[in-house]
């Protein structure tokens, strides 16, 4: 079987690895923005080839597909979906795994995703307001209180301002930061002409985050084991948000701080979304759909956002876990026969994935880019870990150069997270900077201490959401405006201009 994989990063390397283990003996072809050494090696080893191209250019990808004539095309990242790559390929008769541009709207537009959840009354939804006018947004955030300010469009998993606003004495500071941030966001969003609303303001919730990845053929939703990502760039959950500095999973289907029932509710939410989305956009969803979830006191399982693809680095956790044929799963999704597929996993291991990034990421990718690095992959393999190449390029001379984002991921497993985490640290010691530029990774991911914190937080949140559930208050925030009555929208307030 011939497979064409579109994408260039660590996520695609993980997908390629799992595909290459298939009993179908696939030949893997890759359409990539740069020469990712991990991807080019798998392509070479399976008798395929890596094409350097612009993955967001549908015509380019079509040209490669026509040359390769693959049995299946797998679209890794979201931007090619937004750009219509799957649409054109399907139109030309190719079998494609990856959301169409209309289905990918669930990730591209946060406003669309939130509106959909409200329209179809799907649990786990948050109150929000969307703004296309800077002045209105500025005015609103000034009085909105405890909110999250986000770009209304997917912009590579960053640019969110989450301000816990429970301190009236710091109100002025919060307001100033929010207003300035809104101005900054509008400036950054100006380059995206594909979306009307620029800024989204939503109810802030607190709790434990986790990612629920699924695969769907449009009618059946198949859940993968839960994974937890670590968005803070520095140890101990300090510092700016990144695309993810590492992730943990297992042992088994859920995380140590999520209950089976919460897992089921989460998958129900995603199942509802798949159905609602297809009704709304009148298109079949074939591909991966992930929910970035949070266990909150408001709802229990709550949707923070959706990904119309596998999570990065979350899919990397699946590399040592999935034991059934990954390519068969993809094939069945494409053919609409996913319900008959049995996903088998190793449920006796805890997996820890850690990313390594050049210092400067994520605030200043310019200074993080173009540093020579080396890696002793043999030593990492000896530890039983897998090395994934992400934002790093092999130039002609065999040297590796960073691109400014997460350069590598190591995937390690053991009987518990702590042991897997230590292994990952050891594996990372074989990744070296050749010009002395510091490399950043988080040694605390998977540590017993961090797990204990998550468990404690989950317990606290669970106590409250279960109490709210008993009183029929899930999802509601009751506001009483004297003289006007009771409202359920937390943004209702006599001080907010409506």
């Amino acid at each position, binding site marked *: 079987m011939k497979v064409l994989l579109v994408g260039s990063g660590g996520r695609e390397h993980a997908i390629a690895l799992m595909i290459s283990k298939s009993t179908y003996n696939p030949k893997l072809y890759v359409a990539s923005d740069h020469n990712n050494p991990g991807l080019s090696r798998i392509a070479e080893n399976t008798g395929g080839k890596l094409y350097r191209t612009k993955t967001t250019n549908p015509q380019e990808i079509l040209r490669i597909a026509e040359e390769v004539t693959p049995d299946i095309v797998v679209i890794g990242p979201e931007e090619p979906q937004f750009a219509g790559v799957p649409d054109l390929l399907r139109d030309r008769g190719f079998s494609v795994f990856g959301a169409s541009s209309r289905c990918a709207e669930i990730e591209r537009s946060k406003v669309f995703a939130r509106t959909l959840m409200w329209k179809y009354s799907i649990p786990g939804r948050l109150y929000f307001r969307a703004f296309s006018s800077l002045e209105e947004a500025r005015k609103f955030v000034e009085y909105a209180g405890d909110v999250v300010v986000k770009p209304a469009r997917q912009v590579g998993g960053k640019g*969110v*301002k*989450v*301000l*816990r*606003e*429970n*301190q009236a*004495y*710091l109100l*002025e*500071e919060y307001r*100033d*930061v929010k207003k*300035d*941030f809104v101005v*900054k966001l509008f400036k950054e969003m100006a380059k995206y002409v594909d979306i009307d609303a620029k800024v989204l303001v939503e109810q802030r919730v607190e709790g434990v985050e986790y990612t629920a990845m699924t695969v769907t053929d449009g009618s059946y939703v198949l859940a993968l084991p839960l994974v937890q990502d670590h*968005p*803070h*760039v*520095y*140890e*101990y*959950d*300090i*510092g*700016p*948000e990144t695309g993810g500095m590492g992730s943990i999973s297992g042992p088994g289907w859920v995380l140590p701080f999520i209950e089976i029932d919460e897992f089921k509710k989460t998958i129900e939410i995603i199942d509802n979304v798949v159905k609602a989305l297809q009704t709304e956009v009148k298109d079949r969803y074939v591909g991966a759909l992930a929910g970035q979830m949070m266990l909150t006191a408001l709802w229990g399982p709550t949707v923070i956002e959706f990904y119309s693809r596998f999570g990065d680095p979350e899919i990397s956790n699946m590399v040592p876990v999935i034991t059934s044929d990954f390519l068969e799963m993809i094939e069945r999704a494409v053919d609409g026969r996913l319900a008959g597929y049995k996903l088998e996993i190793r449920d006796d291991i805890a997996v820890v994935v850690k990313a390594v990034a050049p*210092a*400067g990421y994520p*605030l*200043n990718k310019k*200074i993080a880019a173009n540093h020579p690095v080396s890696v002793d992959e043999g030593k990492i393999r000896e530890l039983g870990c897998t090395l994934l190449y992400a934002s790093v390029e092999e130039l002609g001379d065999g040297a590796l150069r960073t691109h400014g984002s997460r350069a590598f991921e190591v995937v390690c497993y053991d009987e518990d997270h702590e042991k897997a985490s230590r292994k990952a640290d050891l594996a990372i010691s074989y990744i070296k900077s050749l010009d*002395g530029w*510091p490399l*950043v990774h988080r040694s605390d991911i998977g540590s017993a201490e961090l797990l204990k914190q998550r468990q404690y937080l989950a317990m606290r949140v669970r106590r409250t959401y279960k109490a709210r559930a008993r009183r029929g208050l899930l999802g509601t925030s009751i506001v009483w405006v004297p003289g006007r009555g009771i409202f359920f929208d937390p943004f209702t307030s006599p001080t907010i201009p409506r």
Partner: protein
Amino acid sequence: MGGLLALYAFDDLWNLSNHVYYGLTALDHRGSEKYVACTVSNGRVKCYKDSKERISKEVTTPLAIAATYSNEYSDIYLGSYSTNNLEFVMIGDRDSKIMDIIGEEVTSRLRSLNTSMTNEILLTFKEVLNELNGKDIPSFIAITNKGEILAYRSSTGLTPLTLGGYGFDLALISSESRAIDILGGDIRKWLRPNELLYLSKYAVKSIQIQGKDTGHLCAFELLYMARHDSIVDGINVYKFRKVLGHALAENLDADVDIVVGVPETAIPYAIGLAQAINKPFEIGFVSTGKHMRSALRVDPLQKLIAIHLKMNPVVHVLEGKKIALVDDSMVTGATMKTVSQILRYRVGVEELHVVIASPPLIRGCPYKLMPIDVKSLLAANLDTENAVKYLEVDSLTWIKPKVMSKVARIFNVKLCGKCFGIDFVG
């Protein structure tokens, strides 16, 4: 000992003026209205010593270090250093000559390096601190003109430091977790003894300096210094005090009607004792004006004013009763004498039994954390018989070191007990 606070915003949108103000307010109980704040503006480190209101207005930048203290010459160390293009200021939570040595060593090594690699100051501090392995070094925070912050927890572990985070935006370091709560943050890590933490835009690093990484917290941190709502090295302060209060019952012989605590520190001890002996806990005193910590006042008159203001008795609760009066500690006995005068002459109590939640204080502090003058220590100079007479009380009970040790072991903590004449409690 003073209270340290360091704030770092990863996003330049932040003006931390109010954060400095309220962070210092949360640490007010560790000093007596004296403050210093240092920040970076126009590539220079600038420090301000003044009222909280004034110094916080000067900090309009995304990073700052600050402290509150009582006595400028013993409670803090403040040193500023510069070399080549680098400037840094260190604030320690007590004065010590070793701080000068660290500052000068770091400066001279940086001068000879003459490069501008990131993390250089961290590596130099690490090198110098490693060479001082085994020496007593206070906890300190430092700020550089390149927008970096360093925090080091004392080699002996005597005073704590806590790292907190606020969303994706701020890192907060404080002598006490309380300040992190007040600034809306979450506790992320209790720094270990000898741990050096480095914060900059492009790196956050924690380094363990050579030496013991198990220290002994100053007993007074848990007994007196920290607020009830703080968590110190994972120990819930309120709970520790209540359990210790419970243990006080083991040594108390007297039969009393009610249990009263000296506000505010002794309240949880009194609640614990009352529950243990099954007698009512009562509010015996109400304070006037803002909360002042009498023990941290240096000037004797100021101290007396603080005591008189916070000890207005609730007469009908106390009048004619046999009272167990609980306090966390007794240094010179001046507070207790003043209170007993109020209770004897203004209220008229039947019996007054004083119960102290610490062992007798008989030695000075070798680390100079507490300003203790041995010749004025009540327990070091008066025997119990004379102490009881002087204080005009019916009995005086101190907790026994082995009872306190038992409590410390419940909380899995080893405390410094040098001022009680023993090495460790717990």
